[in-house]
């Protein structure tokens, strides 16, 4: 067997595609954690967004309204999470876990209330893949990079935007200052609470839009627990990527490539049990974490500490 044959055009296409929702959620989480808030509730956010995406597309018969509804949902969720963790100073990990459990049940419940218990889920209009003119005709690169769904492009663009904001603008400086030493930031006249709320909203909107990618870009329906652990992977990517958007991108790509690899190893019938192949993405991530741990951690100093004046 020619082992290298696995790494063909389709492999890279799958890797990039599967990485997108994780990357988007992870970039949102990077910004949130840079402002000192640890949101473990991404998984719940993704589920919520996936559900709202289908709901909006179902009600208005266009995926765009699904996206709008999911963004609105992300804003609301951001404020609720912010209220609990910033204003009330609740434990961030516990609040996040609560959100995960709540939305796992709530989205399934609402889906069944609205659409009934169905053998197969109701399908709604979804975003189609967009071939970018000219670019998509480039041999090899075109099909790999330029034939994705709109929100997949958005996910990768968001890495650039977040990097730029975080490192090249005064906004980014403020966010980083808040995450490292909020008291100093406060003395400098930065409205710490408002920025934290802003990042909570941004992070949760990213998570919700990540859910939209799953439900009405990759699929065209809502399935119970459609997020299937991607939120936790996103949290892992943030740590893996040492709290930088580009790091989160690499983390997401490791998961995407790991999955694309294990899927093909199964097909090539390598003499390794499937259950071991299935954990390849997680093993890759673990190895990477151990590798990057050697360096000084870039963890924001005030992460997950509630700020009180």
């Amino acid at each position, binding site marked *: 067997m020619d082992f290298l044959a696995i790494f063909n055009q389709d492999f890279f296409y799958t890797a990039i595609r599967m990485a997108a929702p994780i990357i988007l959620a992870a970039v949102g989480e990077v910004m949130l954690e840079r402002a000192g808030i640890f949101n473990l509730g991404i998984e719940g956010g993704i589920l919520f967004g996936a559900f709202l995406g289908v709901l909006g597309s179902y009600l208005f018969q266009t995926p765009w309204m699904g996206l709008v509804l999911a963004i609105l949902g992300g804003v609301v969720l951001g404020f609720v999470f912010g209220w609990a963790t910033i204003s*009330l100073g609740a434990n961030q990990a516990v609040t996040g876990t609560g959100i995960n459990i709540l939305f796992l049940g709530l989205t399934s419940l609402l889906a069944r209330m609205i659409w009934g218990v169905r053998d197969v889920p109701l399908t709604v209009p979804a975003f189609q893949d967009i071939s970018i003119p000219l670019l998509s005709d480039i041999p090899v690169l075109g099909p790999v990079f330029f034939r994705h769904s709109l929100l997949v492009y958005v996910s990768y663009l968001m890495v650039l935007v977040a990097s730029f904001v975080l490192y090249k603008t005064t906004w980014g400086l403020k966010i980083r200052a808040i995450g490292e030493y909020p008291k100093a930031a406060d003395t400098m006249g930065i409205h710490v609470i408002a920025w934290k709320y802003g990042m909570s909203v941004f992070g949760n909107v990213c998570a919700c839009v990540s859910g939209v990618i799953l439900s009405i870009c990759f699929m065209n329906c809502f*399935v119970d627990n459609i997020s299937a652990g991607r939120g936790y992977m996103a949290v892992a990517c943030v740590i893996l990527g040492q709290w930088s958007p580009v790091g989160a991108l690499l983390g997401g790509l490791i998961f995407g490539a790991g999955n*694309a690899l294990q899927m093909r190893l199964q097909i090539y019938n390598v003499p390794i049990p499937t259950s071991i192949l299935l954990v390849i993405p997680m093993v890759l991530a673990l190895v990477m974490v151990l590798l990057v741990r050697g360096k000084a951690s870039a963890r924001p100093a005030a992460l997950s500490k509630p700020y009180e004046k």
Partner: protein
Amino acid sequence: MKKRIAALTLAAAMTLGLTACGGGGGSQPSSAPSGAGGSDGQGGGDGVSAAILLPGTINDAGWSAAGYNGLMQAKDEYGLAAADYSESVPLAEQESTIRDYASRGYNLIIGHGNDFLDAIKSVSAEFPDTAFAVTNSVVEGYDNVVGIDVKNEEQGYVAGYALGLLTQSNKVGFVGSTEGLAQKRVENGFVQGLAASNPSAQPVITYVGSMDDSAKAKEQANALFDEGVDCIFQYAQGAGIGVVQAAEESGKTIVVTSPSQQEMAPNTAAMYVQTDTKQQIVSAVKAYTEGNFNSSLKIEGTFASGLFKVGGYSDSLMSADVQSQVQKVVDDLTSGAIQLEVTAAS
């Protein structure tokens, strides 16, 4: 102080939300069923309440849906006082869920799948008056535990046989959810069926690693198509919807597990091979209501006992000849003319 009250309110709201989810899962009826428990629990369907524990969700169009539908139909037929279910029961919560149902007075508790066997065996001794049934299992030596032996191989065999006749590239795919015993048995039947109809075809076996991740299942199916597989049998439970969509979008033939899935892929779904656990669960409920529930009770899940249903032959994908060949295999399995190698539980 104000903050503390607000935090408490929030916590209360979240707890309420949780309760709502539990209700959605149907696992927490507001009160214990009437006419429950005691030595006079047996006899007469009116007072009987049954519960089923499922490994997946009730809308997976596969294994768990079959168990759920079976119990609901048994409820109607026998006028059960209560018929409840718990979905996606994780391994660590199996025993506590079973114990919960038993102590609330449910008479018949069904674990849907071999995964539940150990938990049921260990709990059954604590509740000698409660009847337990486990699908996909052979149970001996327990007075109140009955195994429902499901021959999953037969389901896989028919799908493999049909796809062996339909493939052009001689590469036939199988997409399963997670590698449990039931899945493994379907897979083994599939390989046997494929070899029987087309010895030169190569089975390509893959697992999604999840019962829900339909997006990942879709990628898995597309990866199969990329590698030259031209038809698939999907047995990936809730995630399988992704496989169905991938097949329909790329115009590749697929064998599905329910008529409703076939409606989702009208152009590419050649047929369905469905599990209809109703008869087995009805048998368990019937035995219980008639007082025949004991260690000598044997319930089988086969074509012969009506567990599997095959249908929806697509005229555009299957020639009349192919259809009759597949139907002949179904008939032979039903009559017992074909006997399959059975996978042992490990």
